[in-house]
């Protein structure tokens, strides 16, 4: 029985050998760059010193994890990380879908192409520059936004300094930067929908809006769920680059996240084991979230990652 299984597999590989060859580079990539480096996780349980390396550094067990959980900032870091990510998800996730649906209805090709290109562009701008642009536009002394506010008779707002503005700025600038790029995948799905469906709907007298609701969205749904699950799996990954560029002690309260804390303690103080331990914790939580989201999606809808 087993043998015949193996036999069919070999036969299938032979038959589809070109497909398998095309997959090969990806597999090699994942093995070399994502699986081999995993042995580095051991330093999370060691007191890593560069001189000792992986083999001679002393083992400390779960000390670094305990350190992190007992840190006075643990809960705040967790809350900030989660909230920034969560807001980015609930406000940022629908935007590219809506954008793709709107763009799909545009019939003028030149206009459509232009809008698409313009909306992709911010994705290629580095984060440093995005934050630089924010600094220039929001500057309390000579920023455009504040000059306008002053003209209208309001007092200048210190956007980058005030606690209540931080999350809004972080999330909205993130949406601005990425919605165009993220909409590509939805546009691709939309362009793959058979025109016959729309034609049939037109014959039945469906309006444009109805066509979007009853044809476009259901066809998009598998993709939406797939991306949502993947995004939920990244919920605790908030990159430190942008936050480090944006925050200041006055906004630590809402801005300090796990990765910035790790940056200060792990990298700047060369405390690599601690950094690795927190990273591992982060990934385990993300993994659990991913499994949960996938489970719920499978139960509620018929679509899921696996």
């Amino acid at each position, binding site marked *: 029985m087993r043998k015949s299984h193996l036999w069919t597999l070999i036969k299938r590989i032979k038959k589809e050998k070109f497909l398998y060859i095309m997959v090969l580079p990806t597999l090699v990539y994942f093995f070399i760059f994502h699986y081999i480096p995993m042995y580095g996780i051991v330093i999370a349980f060691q007191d890593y010193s560069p001189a000792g390396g992986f083999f001679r550094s002393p083992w400390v067990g779960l000390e670094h994890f305990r*350190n992190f959980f007992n840190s006075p900032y643990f809960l705040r870091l967790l809350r900030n990380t989660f909230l920034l990510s969560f807001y980015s998800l609930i406000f940022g996730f629908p935007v590219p879908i809506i954008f793709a649906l709107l763009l799909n209805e545009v019939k003028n090709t030149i206009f459509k192409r232009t809008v698409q290109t313009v909306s992709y562009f911010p994705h290629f701008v580095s984060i440093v520059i995005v934050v630089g642009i924010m600094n220039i536009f929001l500057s309390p002394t000579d920023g455009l936004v504040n000059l306008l506010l002053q003209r209208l008779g309001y007092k200048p707002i210190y956007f980058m300094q005030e*606690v209540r503005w931080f999350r809004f700025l972080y999330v909205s600038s993130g949406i601005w930067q990425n919605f165009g790029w993220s909409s590509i995948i939805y546009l691709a799905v939309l362009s793959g929908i058979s025109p016959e469906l729309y034609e049939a709907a037109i014959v039945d007298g469906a309006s444009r809006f109805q066509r979007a609701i009853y044809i476009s969205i259901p066809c998009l749904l598998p993709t939406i769920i797939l991306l949502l699950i993947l995004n939920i799996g990244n919920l605790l990954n908030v990159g430190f680059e942008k936050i480090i560029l944006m925050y200041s*002690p006055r906004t630590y309260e809402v801005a300090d996240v796990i990765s910035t804390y790790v940056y200060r303690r792990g990298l700047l103080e060369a405390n690599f084991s601690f950094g690795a331990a927190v990273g591992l914790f982060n990934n385990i939580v993300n993994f659990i979230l991913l499994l949960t989201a996938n489970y719920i999606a499978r139960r509620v809808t018929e679509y899921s990652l696996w």
Partner: protein
Amino acid sequence: MYKRHIGLLVILIVSMIFGSVYSKPLVDKPVTLTFMRPDAENPVHSLTRETPLIWQWWEEATGIHIQPVDVVPEQDYKNVFNLKVAAGQVNADLIDVRSDNQGTQLVQYGRDGLLMPLNDLIDKYAPNIKALMKKYPKYKMDLTAPDGKIYAISSANASRYMFMTFLVRKDWLDKLGLKVPDTLEDFYKTAIAFVKHDPNGNGKADEIGMLSPDRLWGLNELACAYDLRLCTGGGFHIREDGRITYDFIMPEAKEFLKFLNKCVKDGAIPPYYDDPSVFTGAGSLFWQKIYDSQLGIYIRAIAPMVGPLNDPKGVMKKNDPKARWVATLPPLMPNGKRAKVTEQLAMRWRTYGITTKCKDPVAAIKWLDFVFASKEGREIYLYGKEGVTFKRNPDGSIERIVTIDTSKDEIATGPLAGKWWGSSITMPILSDDAWTEAQFKIWQTPSWAINSVKANFKYLVAPFQAPMLLPEEAKEVTTLLNDITTYKNEMWAKFVAGDIPITDENFNNYVNRIKQLGIDRIIEIYQKAFARVK
């Protein structure tokens, strides 16, 4: 026959050139050493593109070629360096070690075998550094690790001029009939007067009272008026009875917070005093404000800054010929005594070490000795090359032949920088009074400005510099201090901005929280370290 003559001539010329250039090289044959260090501050003079002239001149004098490797911008250096160390990929002969001021990394790298102990090398091959350490025992002590070894040479400062001070626009004071501020209250009143009475006379209310390029952290320098040391030394302070205090939680700190808060509220300090968007980047708004004649009091300036700011050929004078900057005295304390200003000797956060992988440690220590502590090496650093940039008068004094248009570089790198001797290629250098005075000569600094700086000499005091800690101690201190600093910075910023009112209750909560986070344990470790050195 004829050909042989030409050959002889060539040999003669070559030997003449080399004979004069390599008058007394430090090494028998040319040596190349690799040097891992951050890039020049001014990207125009990036080390990836050009070798600083000074390095070339040093090479001519020593026969040692320095090849920069792994050049990255200054702000990324510490990260890259840490990662390279962790990966065991530091292969350079000489390295710029970015340690913290406790010397934690020096001890660590020494123990891990990355850095070579220099004691014997200094003894045998570095007469100038040796003499220096004899002359300034404190310098040697500051660089000696708990195991008795010296792992790196640091920039050093024995110039009394190199302290942090407050600069004020004398011409504005005269115009408004004010005197140089003498107490904290004076600082406040002067700043308010500057803001209100349009001393730059352009009819616009664009004047700023006080500002520091180091943002809120820099404004803390004013706390010396309460006998608090909040900037240099990270808030730690050895009192006269030998007790160490953490000044951010002293009762006086509350009074100082109230002062800062008042300044911010009433506009003596502009509301963007801590806004990174105002201060980040070269040619920052801060310097624009100075050059546009909008700033009245410059908090936490390095005292020799009176040089470039009063330079008749500098940007400041070009923009506003009337501008005159003087240094104030440290403010009077509430008890009527004058506050102290802190000086600095060894700077452990900027040190240069020789790696254990170094091919030629003898040449490396000789080079460090030459550029760092020898008379010739420092002369090149300060004046350039004889016959090219300066000439020696019969009476022994030095005169510059080439004057460099520093104004072009200044905005990009700050006034203390310049292509020839400036900070864009900062090297370990011992500065002393003569060194700074020579710089004043270059800037043609008027004597009233120099005298205003000199008047501070009586009030100089050594900063807090803990002896290097044992690795276990250092680890405990950094871990505890990290959380404390995060909390302190956050609360301090909020107190000053008025986000949290400075009441007894709030302040006590803040003090208690810092105690909870383990400040007493850190002080205990420091006390122990001091006892060990004694």
